[in-house]
C-alpha cells in the first residue's frame, strides 16, 4: 500500500498538466533584415505632446460613431467613439483636454480626432475595477469595453478587434517582436511584470482554453516569463518568429469557425495598469530607430502623441520616411502626424526617390537581397544595411516561384493562396488556409517579391471579403 502511495506521488508531483507544457517551435524559413540604427537600451521621457490624435483607421474594418463633438472636454479614458459593429466597443481618449478637431476625408469619413491636451496634468476617468478572482468572464469583458481596453484584444482569423460575445478557443500573446529594428520587450517592459501578470490573470478568465505566451528561445529574462498556468512556447527561428500567427500555426492552428484572441505584449501593460490603478493610460515605451535617427533609443510616450514630440531633435534633416511602426508593416506618417494606436516603434529611413543608372544590371553592395544576382548580402550575414524606400524596380506579373516559400514558415502555399485571394475564390482561399494568416505574415513575401507585388494589401482585402461572405 505504501508503495502505491509513493507511486501516486510521483505523478502528483508533476505540477504542470501535460497541455500546459512548453513546446519548442522550430523553423528555418524566414528572414532577419538587419538595418542600421537599432535603438540602444536607454529610455528617455518624450516631452509631452500638445496635441494627441486617434486615427479610426487603426481599428481595421470598424466604422466610428462619434460620442462627442468638437469643443468637448475629455479626460483620459473618456470614450470618443463607439464602433458601428458593436456599440459596446469604445475607443477612449489617451489624455485629458479638449477635442479640437475632427478631421474628415472623402465622403465625410473620420480620419482623425484631435485632442488639445491639458498642459500640466492629466485628469483620468475613474473606473470601478472588478476583482479579477471573483468576477465572471462577462463582468470582465464589460469592464474592458467600458474602460476602452477592449480594442487591445484582437482576433484571428481576420486580424480585427475581437467580438465581446465570442468565447475564444485560446488566447495567444507573442512575447517578442522580431520585425526589423523592433523594440526589445525584455528591455522596454522589464519593470512591468506586475501589470503584465494582472492582465494575463484577466485574459485567463476569458477563455475556456489556454493563454499561450511565446518567447524567443534565447531569452531567459523576459518580463512575460515565469507565470503560472500559462502554455509557454520557445521559438527558434528568424523573423517572422515573433508574429503571433506563426506561433499559433505551429502550436494549435486555427480551423474554420474557431476564434483565437491575440494581445500584443505592450498592450498587456495598459490593461494591467487599468486593473492596478483604476485608470486608462496608454503609455508606451517607443523605440525610435532607423538609419535617419541620430541617437536611436527608447522614449516613454502615450499612444496618439504627435510624432514630432518624440523625434524632435533626434532625426537627421533631409529626405526621410517616417513610419509609425516597423518598416515592414508600419504606416507612413509625417512629423506632424501621430503615433498610432497599436505601435511601439517609430522608424526613420531614407526616402529612395532617386534614379540609379543601370541599377538593374550593375552589382550592388548597398542593397540587401535574398538573391545573389549581383548582390553580396549573403556573404556578410551580419552586415547592417541603411535601406531606403525605393521599390528597386517596377511592378510586374508574378514570374519567379519558390521565393515566397523561403520566408514563409507556414505549412501552406503562399503564392497559390495569394492568387486565390487575387481572384476572390473564397472556396479555394479557405482550402489553402486563409484563416491562419494575417497581412503581417505576408510582409516578408512582399519584401522579397521581384515582381513588387503588394501582398499585404491583397491579403487584407481577401480577409475583408471573408468577413463579408463567411463572417
Amino acid at each position, binding site marked *: 500500500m505504501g508503495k502505491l502511495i509513493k507511486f501516486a506521488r510521483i505523478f502528483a508531483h508533476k505540477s504542470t498538466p501535460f497541455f500546459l507544457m512548453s513546446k519548442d517551435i522550430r523553423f528555418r524559413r524566414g528572414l532577419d533584415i538587419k538595418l542600421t540604427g537599432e535603438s540602444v537600451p536607454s529610455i528617455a521621457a518624450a516631452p509631452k505632446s500638445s496635441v494627441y490624435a486617434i486615427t479610426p483607421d487603426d481599428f481595421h474594418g470598424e466604422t466610428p460613431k462619434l460620442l462627442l463633438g468638437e469643443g468637448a472636454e475629455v479626460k483620459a479614458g473618456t470614450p470618443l467613439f463607439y464602433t458601428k459593429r458593436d456599440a459596446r466597443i469604445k475607443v477612449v481618449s489617451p489624455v485629458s483636454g479638449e477635442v479640437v478637431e475632427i478631421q474628415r476625408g472623402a465622403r465625410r469619413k473620420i480620419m482623425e480626432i484631435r485632442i488639445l491636451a491639458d498642459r500640466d496634468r492629466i485628469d483620468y476617468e475613474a473606473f470601478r475595477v472588478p476583482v479579477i478572482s471573483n468576477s465572471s468572464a462577462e463582468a470582465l469583458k464589460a469592464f474592458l469595453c467600458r474602460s476602452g481596453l477592449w480594442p487591445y484584444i484582437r482576433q484571428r482569423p481576420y486580424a480585427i478587434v475581437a467580438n465581446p460575445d465570442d468565447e475564444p478557443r485560446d488566447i495567444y500573446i507573442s512575447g517578442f517582436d522580431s520585425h*526589423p529594428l523592433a523594440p526589445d520587450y525584455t528591455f522596454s517592459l522589464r519593470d512591468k511584470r506586475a501589470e503584465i501578470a494582472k492582465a494575463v490573470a484577466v485574459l485567463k478568465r476569458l477563455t475556456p482554453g489556454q493563454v499561450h505566451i511565446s518567447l524567443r528561445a534565447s531569452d531567459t529574462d523576459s518580463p512575460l516569463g515565469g507565470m503560472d498556468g500559462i502554455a509557454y512556447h520557445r521559438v527558434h527561428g528568424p523573423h517572422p518568429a515573433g508574429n503571433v500567427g506563426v506561433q499559433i500555426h505551429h502550436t494549435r492552428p486555427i*480551423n474554420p469557425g*474557431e476564434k483565437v484572441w491575440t494581445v500584443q505584449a505592450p498592450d498587456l501593460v495598459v490593461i494591467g495598469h487599468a486593473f492596478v490603478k483604476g485608470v486608462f493610460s496608454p503609455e508606451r515605451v517607443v523605440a525610435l530607430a532607423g538609419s535617419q535617427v541620430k541617437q536611436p533609443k527608447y522614449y516613454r510616450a502615450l499612444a496618439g502623441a504627435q510624432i514630432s514630440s518624440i523625434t524632435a531633435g533626434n532625426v537627421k534633416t533631409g529626405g526621410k*520616411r517616417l*513610419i509609425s511602426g516597423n*518598416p*515592414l*508593416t*508600419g504606416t*507612413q506618417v509625417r512629423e506632424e502626424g501621430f503615433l498610432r494606436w497599436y505601435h511601439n516603434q517609430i*522608424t526613420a*529611413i531614407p*526616402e*529612395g*526617390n*532617386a*534614379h*540609379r*543608372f*543601370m*541599377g*538593374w544590371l550593375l552589382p550592388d553592395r548597398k*542593397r*540587401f*537581397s535574398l*538573391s545573389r*544576382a*549581383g*548582390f553580396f548580402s549573403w556573404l556578410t550575414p551580419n552586415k547592417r544595411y541603411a*535601406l531606403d*524606400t*525605393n*521599390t*528597386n*524596380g*517596377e*511592378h*510586374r506579373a508574378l*514570374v*519567379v*516561384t*519558390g521565393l515566397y*516559400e523561403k520566408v514563409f514558415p507556414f*505549412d*501552406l*502555399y503562399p*503564392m*497559390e493562396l495569394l492568387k486565390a485571394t487575387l481572384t476572390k475564390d473564397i472556396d479555394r482561399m479557405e*482550402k*489553402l488556409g486563409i484563416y491562419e494568416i494575417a497581412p503581417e505574415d505576408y*510582409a516578408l513575401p*512582399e*519584401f*522579397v517579391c*521581384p*515582381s*513588387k507585388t*503588394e*501582398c499585404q*494589401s491583397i491579403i487584407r482585402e481577401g480577409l475583408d471579403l471573408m468577413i463579408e461572405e463567411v463572417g
Partner: protein
Amino acid sequence: MKPLRNFFDALQSKVRETPKLHKYQPVVNAFDTIFFTPNQTTKNGVHIRDGVDLKRVMGTVVIALIPALLFGMYNVGYQHFIQLPGAHGFWEMFRFGARRVLPLVIVSYTVGLTVEFTFAVLRGHEVNEGYLVTGMLIPLIVPVDLPLWMLAVSVVFAVIIGKEAFGGTGMNVLNPALVARAFLFFAYPTFMSGDIWVAGATATDAISGESLLGKLGLGHAVTGGTMRMFVGLIPGSVGETSVVAILIGAIILIYTGVGSWRIMLSALIGASLMGLTFNAIGSGALMSFPWWKHLLLGGFMFGIAFMATDPVSAAQTTRGKWIYGFLIGLMSILIRVFNPAYPEGVMLAILFMNVMAPLIDHVVIASNIKKRQRRYRSAIANS
C-alpha cells in the same frame, strides 16, 4: 549620366502632358528603365524592398546564356571550316560564326520586341522583361542556316500565340522559345531535318551536316570522342552543343538562385534512369547507346538548364519541381529512343510537361489541402 537623365525626364513629361502620346507611355518607360532604375518609392505595405527585380532576374539568365552563345559562334565557324581543305585559325572561325549567328540574334530581338511593344501599347501594360531571355534562347536553339524570314515568322508566332494570347509574361502555359522551335519543326519539316546543322554545308561529306542525334536516329554509328561531345565541337543547333558552356551557365543560374537546381538535378536523374533502363534491355543501336552519352547529345543539357527551369511554365511548388524535372528527363530519352524519326526529344518533353505542370501542382497542393481538411474535420468532431 545627367544629360541622359534630363533627356528621359523631358521625354517623360512630354508624354505625360500630351494626351495623344499617353498610349506610348510603356515604350518610353521601357527605354527609361533600361538605363535608370525608376525613382518609385514604396507607399503602403512594406516600406523597404529587396534589391532584386524582374529585370535583374531576366538579365542574369541572359548573362548565363552568353558562354553558350560565344561557344556557338566559334563552333559554327569550326564546323564550317573543318569540311573545307586547308588550315584555319581560331579567330577566322569565330568571326565566321559571329557573322552567321549575330543576324539571328538581332532578328530575334528586333522582331520579338516589336511585337512586345505593340502589345504593350495596344493593351496599355508595361513591357515585360520576359522577352530578354526568350529573344536570346530562340537563336540558340535553331540551326544556323535557318533563313531569317523563317526565324522572324516563328518569333512572331511564339510571342503572339505562345505568350500574348495568354496575357503576357507570367501568364503563358508554354515556354515561348520552345513554341518558336516547335513551330519551325512542324511548319517547315522539310527544312528542319538533314544537312542544316553546319553553316554552308558543302557536299564534301554527305552527312557532315547531320547532327549526331540525326545519325543515331538513322541507325548510323556515332563517331567522335566523348570529349568532343562534352566540349561541344559537334554539329547541332547554335547554342546547344557545348556541355561545358551550358554548365557554366547552369552554375550561374544555380549560384544566383535564379534557376531551379531541383529541376535540373531531377531531370538528370530521370534521363539517367531511363537511359540505364534502355541499356539493360539493349536491343538495337539506340537502346544500347550508353546512357551517359545521351546526356551529352543534342539539346538535352541546354533544355534542362535554360528551358525546363523557366519558372512561368514549370511546376511552381517545390515537390512539383522534382516531379516535373524527373519526368522531363525520363521523357526526353524515351522520345529519342522510341521515335527515331524525331530523335530530339527534349523539346517535346519540356513542352508536354509545360502542359502537365499545372496538373502536377494541383496534385501537390491537393495533398496539402487534404491534410488541412482532415484537421478541420477532426476539430469539428472534437467540438
